[in-house]
C-alpha cells in the first residue's frame, strides 16, 4: 500500500511541483503517508513532500520527512544553480529546530543521498526522533560550508531572521574549517576572517537575539583507528567546547560520543557506516570513505546527537518522539549545559519535565545497538 502511494505521489507530484498552494491531491497523498502526518502537520508537509518527491525520490526518508531537507521555493542567492530550495518550517505555529552545519549534517546539493552515492548527514534521520506534531525540523546545513562561509554567505543571512522565539538551532562545524583561524578570540586575520570559536559564539548570540536556543556540537569524527579504538584527533573539538563555554551555550561533544559508540560497534561494523563502504568502493572504482556517512552511519550519528539532547537541560528534549526513548542519555562528561539554557530558553514547553522524566524512565535500551551509552 505504501509503495503504491509512493508511486502515486511520484506520479502526480509533477502536477504539484511549482504550485505553492497545495492542491487537494497533495493533501490526499500526504494524509495517506505514514502515521507521523498528524492533523496539525499534514497540510504543510503535503505540499513540500509533493515537490521534494520529484526532486529527491530517495529511498530512505518518507514523504512526510523529506521536506525537512528540501523546500519548494527557489531563493535568490541560494547555491546549487537552481537545484537547492532551502527548506522552511512546515507549520509556522510550531517551534522549529534549525539544523546547521556541513556535509556531515546534510550531504549534497539535494540532500537526498545524491543519487547512488547514498551519503547522508545526520540531519536527515534525526527527524525520526522528534515528534513532528510538536516541532518542525529544518535542515539548513549545506555541504562544503565552514563556520565563516556559513555565517558570511547566503546561509545564515537567509536563515537567521526566520528564527523565532522558542526555536532551537543546533550547529556543527569544523570539517571544512581547516583554514579558519584557530581559537575563540575576537581577533580578525588579514583576510577579514574571525576565529572558529568567534563564529560559533556569533551563531549563539544571533540565535538568542531572535529568542532561540543554540546548541553547539563538536564535529563528527573521521574514521581513524588505533589499536582497535577510534582515535580521531581534531582541534575543532576543543575549540567548539571552549566557544560553547564562553557563550554559555549548551554543548554536545558529538565527536566523543560517536567515537565511544564506534569503539563498541567495532571496526567491521563501522566500515558499513561510511559510504562508500570498502565493498561499494571496490565495486564502483572509488575510494572508501572516511568522513561522510551513509544512511546507517547517519542514524548512528543522529542517535548520538539525540543522546546528547536527552542529557542537556534545554527544553528540546520535550519534543522527542517515542523512537527516541530507545536512545540512552549521553554520559555527563559528553555534554555541558554551561548554565545558560535556563536563562535563555524561558519559552520551554510545559511538558518539559514530564517528557524528561518519562524518557529517562525508559532509558533501558530495548536494543543495545541503538544505545549510545558506553562503558
Amino acid at each position, binding site marked *: 500500500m505504501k509503495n503504491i502511494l*509512493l*508511486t502515486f505521489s*511520484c*506520479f502526480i507530484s*509533477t*502536477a*504539484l*511541483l*511549482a*504550485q505553492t498552494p497545495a492542491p487537494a491531491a497533495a493533501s490526499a497523498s500526504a494524509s495517506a503517508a505514514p502515521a507521523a502526518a498528524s492533523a496539525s502537520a499534514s497540510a504543510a508537509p503535503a505540499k513540500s513532500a509533493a515537490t521534494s518527491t*520529484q*526532486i529527491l*525520490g*530517495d*529511498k530512505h526518508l518518507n514523504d512526510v520527512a523529506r521536506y525537512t531537507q528540501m523546500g519548494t521555493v527557489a531563493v535568490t542567492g541560494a*547555491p*546549487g*544553480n*537552481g*537545484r537547492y530550495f532551502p527548506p522552511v518550517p512546515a507549520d509556522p505555529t510550531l517551534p522549529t529546530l534549525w539544523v546547521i552545519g*556541513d*556535509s556531515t549534517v546534510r550531504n*549534497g*546539493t539535494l540532500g537526498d543521498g*545524491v*543519487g*547512488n*552515492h547514498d*551519503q547522508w548527514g545526520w540531519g536527515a534521520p534525526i527527524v525520526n526522533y522528534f515528534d513532528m506534531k510538536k516541532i518542525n525540523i529544518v535542515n539548513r546545513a*549545506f*555541504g*562544503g*560550508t*565552514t563556520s565563516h*562561509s556559513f555565517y558570511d*554567505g547566503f546561509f545564515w543571512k537567509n536563515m537567521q531572521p526566520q528564527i523565532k522565539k522558542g526555536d532551537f538551532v543546533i550547529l556543527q562545524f569544523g*570539517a*571544512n574549517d*581547516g*583554514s579558519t583561524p584557530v581559537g575563540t578570540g575576537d581577533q580578525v586575520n588579514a583576510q577579514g576572517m574571525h576565529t572558529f570559536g568567534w563564529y560559533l559564539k556569533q551563531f549563539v548570540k544571533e540565535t538568542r537575539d531572535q529568542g532561540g536556543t543554540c546548541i553547539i556540537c563538536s564535529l563528527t569524527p573521521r574514521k581513524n583507528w588505533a589499536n582497535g579504538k577510534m582515535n580521531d584527533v581534531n582541534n575543532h573539538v576543543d575549540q567548539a567546547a571552549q566557544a560553547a563555554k564562553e557563550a554559555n551555550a549548551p554543548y554536545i561533544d558529538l565527536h566523543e560520543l560517536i567515537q565511544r559508540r564506534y569503539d563498541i560497534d567495532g571496526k567491521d561494523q563501522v566500515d558499513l557506516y561510511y559510504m*562508500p563502504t570498502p565493498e*561499494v568502493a571496490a*565495486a*564502483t*572504482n*572509488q*575510494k572508501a*570513505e572516511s568522513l*561522510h556517512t551513509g544512511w546507517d552511519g547517519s542514524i548512528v550519528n543522529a542517535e548520538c546527537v539525540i543522546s546528547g539532547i536527552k542529557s542537556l537541560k534545554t527544553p528540546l528534549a520535550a519534543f522527542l518522539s517515542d523512537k527516541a526513548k530507545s536512545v540512552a542519555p549521553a554520559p555527563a562528561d559528553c555534554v555541558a549545559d554551561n548554565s545558560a539554557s535556563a536563562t535563555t530558553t524561558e519559552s520551554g514547553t510545559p511538558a518539559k519535565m514530564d517528557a524528561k522524566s518519562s524518557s529517562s524512565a525508559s532509558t533501558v535500551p530495548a536494543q543495545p545497538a541503538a544505545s549510545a551509552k558506553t562503558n
Partner: protein
Amino acid sequence: MKKLLLLLACLFGPALFAQTPTPAPAAPDLHEDPVLHSQAFNAMPMNPALPTIWLIGDSTVHNGTGTGSDLLWGWGAPFEYYFDRTRINVVNRAMGGTSSRSFYTSLWSKVLDNVKKGDFVIMQFGANDNGSPVTGKTSIKGIGDETQDVNGETVHTFGWYMTQYIKETRDKGATPIICSLTPRNRFQPDGHFLRDNTTHAAWAAQTAKDTNTLYIDLYELIARKSEQLGKDAVAAYYGPPATEYLHTNWLGAVSNAECVVGALKAMKDDPLANYFSERGKRIPAMDVSQPPLPVKAPAAAAAASTSTK
C-alpha cells in the same frame, strides 16, 4: 578545503569549478558533485568496467557547461540519478547548439571511440535542425538519401544522420535508443499543447521504425504530461528568463528525465531494466499505449524539403 572549493565553484560558476583539481580517473572523488562529474566536457565513465549510457543531443539534454551556471539544466543532468551507479555509468556528452549534423561531424567520433560492447547510446536531436543547411549547421530536412554539397561538406538529411548514429553504435556492439526532441512549451488557448507532428519528431519515429531501433517519443510524452499539469505548472519548468520556452531549469530537467525513464520502463524489453537505482525503480512506466505520434507522410515532407534547399 576541497569542499570549500566545491562550494565556491557552486557559488561562482563554472570558471572557478574548472580550476578544482580533477580527480584521477581511477579514483574519482566522491565528494565532488556527481552530476557535475558526468556533465563535464568530454566526461568519461566513472568505472570503465561497467556498461555506460552515453547521452548525445543538444542543449535540452546538456545545457551550457552542464553545471547550471545559468540556472538552466538539460534532462541529461538528473538522468543519472535514476540509475544504479554500481551497475552502470551515465555520461552526458550532449552539447548545446548542436544539430544532428554538427554533432556528427564535430563531436560524435570522440564519443564513438569510447563506446564499447554492451553500452547504450541515447540520442535526441532536432531543436537545432531547423533552418538552412547552407547558411547554418542544420541537416537537410527529412529522412531521405538526398545530399547537398555545402562548402565541400556533403550534407545529409536528419534521418540519415540519425541512422548513422544507430549503425555506428551497433557496429560497436552497443544499443542505440532514439528520443524524439523535447517540445517547445506552447499551449494553445484551449489548454492543448501545440504539437508539430510533421517534422523532426516524426522523422525520428520513422527512422527508428526503419532501423528497428528502440524509440522514445519524448516529444509526445512531454506534451501529454504538460497537458496533465497545465500551463501554469509547466511554466515553472522553463527559464529563466520567464519568456524561455525551450530550455528547462532543474525542475523541468527532472520532469523530462522522468519521462525518459518512464518511457524506458514501458518498453516490452527494456534493455536498461536491470540498471535502475532505487529512485529509478520508483518511477512508474509511462502510459505509451495511446496511439503513437501520427507520422504524417514524412516521405512527402522529406521530398518537400529537398526541393526547398
